[in-house]
Every structure is written in structure tokens, then in C-alpha cells.
């Protein structure tokens, strides 16, 4: 069997598992991982337990850079002779010419990108390369630890199973932490769900985390005047649900799940 020509959610998660394993084996500080499609849109992104919140979007931006520039940051650094940051004027800071940004090539075509943020430039690069290596592995590389992330994965998996069982349209799922509504996990299900769902689910998760009520109850709780203009993430339609994890994790986070789903 030859290697896949596209990145599914399962493949992206397999790549992240391998990156987590690599990061743990090489004692890299906890950070975030992102795998995006060829348009630079997230398929899966995750943050390790105790990973800095800001690493999440940096990882996504690195993956976006690799996919849309169709090359790795290391090469961009060389071909722009260290002046790559100038390109950022065009992209409002999104273009990230810091190592840890690796394209996924299959069948001579760039089909996506991988980003890691949280370590040194060299570590970020090595971890993103571990993701690429996993794309070309038939077996699954598992890791130990990361209890919080594992618990949150189970919740996301339950949501995915629900969607499949009820034959709903594919969704995007975001789980955020309670401190700043910073994402810990984003998954986009296969099957052609528009990439707009990613930001929609993220906004709902943020809204539910910020107000600690379901996103569609925010208006009842705090009144409509909080609406538009106050924060562009605020979304008062249904799909953002606050929840509390049991036992050992409860004091750490009040994660929120944000779904964007439409019935068939």
C-alpha cells in the first residue's frame, strides 16, 4: 500500500501523536501542534498539558505558512536571506518564518502543512519533521502521559461518534481552557465540512468559556448589549457548551466544547 494522498483527521491525529511522543522523548517543553490542509486550514491542532496558550496559534500559523508557501520555514529563511519577516506586512503577522513549519508532500504535491511551537527553533523543526515522518508510517506511534489532553480527546471523540451515529453533517470541534478561552484542541471532521466551521466552533467555545454558560444562553445571562463590537469572538448562537472535568482535572480548567453542526 502506498502512502495517502490526502490528510484525513485520523492521519492528522496520528501525526500529532508521533510529535507528542518525539517531544516527550526529547524533553521538549510542552507546546502545541497543528496539521493543516493544502489551503492552510486546520484539520487537527492540539496543545499539550501545561503548554503555553500562545503556542497554539503560532503552531497553526507555522503550519499555514508551510502549506501556503509550499515550503518549510528553514528554506524560506534561506531564500529570503533572513528578511522573511518583511513578508509579514502583507499577512498581518501570520506568515511565520521560524523553524517548526514543514510542508506535507505526497505524490510530488504539497497537500498540507505541519507546525509546532513551544520549543527552541531547532526543537520545533525536529518535532514538525517527526510529524512528517509519521505521515509516512503505516503504524501508530503512541505516547504516555498528557492526562488532560487525553481526557479532552475522549470528549471530542464522543462528539464525533455522536455526529456519525446520528448521520449529521461533519463538524468542527474546539475545546478551550477557562483562563482565556485558549484552544487546547481543534478537530475538523472529514467529509467536506467548510473550513469556516473551524472559526465558528472556536468562537462558540470562547463565548461559552468567557461567560460560563452555553453560547446561546449568553444573551439571557448578560443582556444583548454585550453583543457585536465588544469582542469579535462573541457568538451567541447555539453550539458552545461549558463543562467541568471530573476529579484530578477539575481545578485546572473549565473546558468548553464548541461545535458547528447543521442537521442534514
Amino acid at each position: 500500500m502506498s502512502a495517502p494522498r490526502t490528510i484525513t483527521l485520523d492521519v492528522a491525529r496520528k501525526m500529532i501523536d508521533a510529535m507528542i511522543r518525539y517531544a516527550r522523548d526529547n524533553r521538549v517543553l510542552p507546546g502545541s501542534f497543528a496539521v493543516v490542509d493544502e489551503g492552510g486550514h486546520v484539520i487537527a491542532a492540539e496543545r499539550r498539558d501545561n503548554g503555553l496558550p500562545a503556542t497554539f496559534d503560532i503552531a497553526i500559523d507555522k503550519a499555514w505558512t508551510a502549506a501556503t508557501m509550499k515550503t518549510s520555514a528553514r528554506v524560506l529563511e534561506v531564500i529570503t536571506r533572513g528578511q522573511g519577516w518583511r513578508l509579514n506586512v502583507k499577512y498581518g503577522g501570520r506568515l511565520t518564518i521560524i523553524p517548526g513549519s514543514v510542508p506535507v508532500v505526497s505524490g510530488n504535491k504539497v497537500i498540507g502543512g505541519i507546525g509546532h511551537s513551544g520549543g527552541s527553533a531547532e526543537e520545533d523543526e525536529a518535532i514538525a519533521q517527526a510529524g512528517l515522518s509519521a505521515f509516512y508510517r503505516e503504524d501508530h506511534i503512541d505516547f504516555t502521559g498528557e492526562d488532560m489532553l487525553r481526557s479532552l480527546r475522549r470528549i471530542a471523540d464522543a462528539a464525533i461518534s455522536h455526529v456519525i451515529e446520528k448521520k449529521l453533517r461533519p463538524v468542527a470541534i474546539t475545546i478551550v481552557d477557562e483562563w482565556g478561552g485558549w484552544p487546547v484542541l481543534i478537530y475538523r471532521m472529514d467529509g467536506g465540512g467548510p473550513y469556516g466551521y473551524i472559526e465558528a466552533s472556536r468562537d462558540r467555545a470562547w463565548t461559552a468559556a468567557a461567560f460560563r454558560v452555553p453560547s446561546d444562553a449568553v444573551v439571557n445571562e448578560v443582556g444583548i448589549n454585550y453583543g457585536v463590537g465588544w469582542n469579535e469572538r462573541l457568538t451567541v448562537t447555539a453550539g458552545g457548551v461549558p463543562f467541568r472535568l471530573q476529579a484530578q482535572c477539575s481545578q485546572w480548567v473549565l473546558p468548553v466544547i464548541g461545535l458547528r453542526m447543521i442537521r442534514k
Partner: protein
Amino acid sequence: MALLGVSVARELSQYNVSIAVIDRHNDVGLESTTTNHNLVCQGGDSLTFRPGTLHAELNVKSIPLWPKLADELGFPLRRIGGLWLIRDKADFRRYLRLYSRAFKSSLEPNAPYYIPEGSFQPPLEFVDRKRLLDMEPYITPSALGALHDPNLCITDPVKVAKALAENARANGVEFLLNQEVVRIERQGITYSIYTRQGLVIKSTFVVNAAGIEVDRIAEMVGARNFSIVPLKGTLTDFDEEVGRLISHEVHVLPRIEDMPHVKAVLPNIYGLARSGIYLELTYRSDRVVREEAVNHNIKVAKELFPEIPFEKHVVKSFIGFMAYTNADTGWHDFVVDIPDYVPNWVNIVLGPAGVSASPMLGKKVVELLMQSGLRLEPKRGGFDPRARRGGVQS
């Protein structure tokens, strides 16, 4: 292990340590060692490797070791020379840059391209079409001339691996063949290596030279501090009738539309001609010889030698895997390294040009092991570089 593993074992057999070589096959050299181009980069090729990399260093430092090794162990090493065809000004300019590196390198020992004294004997030279035709009468009319590297050699890497293994065995190395490593445990600095066949081998040092499986073996003890992707190469062999008509390694620089494949044809030690390499990144279990790959190899051969009916003389096509690092940049490099968090463990990833770099590899590993605290002293009974003890095969 195969060529790389036995090179290291042979080098270590000069010292006062007890060594076992473990391999899942019943003989050495049955994987990448047997499915490659057979080239020994003796000069010009080495100039194409990125300066400052281990890839360049081990290859360049191996150049003077090859003739000595061939003499000690009696394996075939034939200087066929390489012809890098010039089709236009762009080709010429690129070769001119390489050529000047060769010239500079022999003057400045500390230059990144340093080639040991005497390696370019005779030196690289440009040849015009007339000389090119004298050297390769069937060459394509589109070649205006060539950069001639008279030093390029071919060998039979399996014979090299066997000779090294037999010499290592004569110097006390034990071979545990038909033993597939499935699990490794580490307690402090003692490794317990478990094989599918039920053997448990205890060791205080491990050298991991498992070829395309190097990452999986390293993961068994959390010692993977590198990443590889499997680069599959398909090669095609043609019979002696064709082999007789080609005497050099002939290649053209790939153009954008040819990427990522290599366009080269060369004779082998046994008089056949070999063409390739059709390259693809894929799963390592993907061992199918694709029709597209074979057609590519025939097309390459015909592009270089249009008058030779290669398609009627195909003997076989086969695939091999190279462990390729830095696939995202294309800047492959070797890994010969002890991971920061796993003591007494050496990972070896050579991949492309691994055969050529193998003589220096053993010395590099010895250096690393000594740095990591292993006290290596020359063996009391002495080391015999020529002795052979057969029966490596189980």
C-alpha cells in the same frame, strides 16, 4: 545488520570489547545494501554534498580508505569514472562551479570541500563532444560535452558487507542471524534486547544501524532524536549485451520536470547496465515495482543512449529504501549520534551515499563511543585486517 552495522563491528573488533551483530535475515546485506546503484563516490560526487554536513564529511574522508579496504579484504572496486553531460550553458555553469570547488579544495585543507590530497588523481576535467564520443560512442547527440570525473568507482556492496563480516568474525565478532529485534528494555546502562526468536541479549552499548527500521528500533527505548521518511528507489538492470556498450556512469542534471528522479545509467561489476533512479516517498511496506517506474528508467536510458534498444534487454527491476532526513528541505544529512537522554546508544542513519561513507563510519562511531566514556584499547591478540572466517550465514 548490514553494510553499516558490519563496518562498525569490524572497526570495533580492533579493540578489547565483545561485540555481537544481530540481524533478522540469515545473511548480511540483504536489504538496501543489495538494492542500490553500487557507486562509491570518489571525488566529483562528494563535491555535490552540502558543505559542513556529516554527509559530506564522512564521504570525503572515506575516499582514501576505499582502495586500502579493497586491498585488505579483496572485494571488487572498479574505477569506471563519471560523465556528467552538458546539454546547454546552464549545465555548463553548474558544473563549472563544482569544478572550481574541486580545484580549491585540494589547496586548502580546512575548506568545507576539502578532499584529501591525492583523491583527484587524475583531476576532474571538461571533455568536448569529440572526446566524449571516444569515451562513450553511443552517447546522445544532445550532449555537447561533459564534466569527466575519472575517480568514480563501482563495487558490489554485498561483497563488501560479507568481506567485512567475515573479517570481523575472524577478529572475534559474534553474529546472531535470523534474530529479529522486537523489544528493547533499558535498566540504567544495561540493555536487554529481545528477539522474536526468543533470544535475550544483554549489552551495555547498542549501535542501532537498522537501515530503514532505524527509527522503530530507536523508539523502543525512547532514543529517537531524528526523523526519517522512507525514500523508495526503483532501479532497472539490462543484460550484458547492453552492459558492454556502456563504460562510465553517465548522468544528466535533473530539470524541474524531472524532479525528484535521478537520471543515470552505469555498468555494474558483473557487466550488466543499471538505470534509474525513480524516487518516491511512500510507506516502507510499499515494495511494489511500478510500471511507471520501470518505464521511467527505460526512458532515462534511452535519453542518454538513444541508439541502444534498452527495452529489449531488461533483466529485472527492483526497489530499495533509503532513510531520508530533512525531507521538508531536501537537505539530507547523516545521523551518527548519541541521544541526549539515552546513554550508551548510537543511532546511525546514512541513507543516500551510505555505501560510500561506510569506511569512515566505523571510525566515527569509535570516536563517539570513546567520547561517551567507553574505554577502548587495542586488542591484546592484535587485529588482523585480512583474516577471514566464513560461516557468517546461518
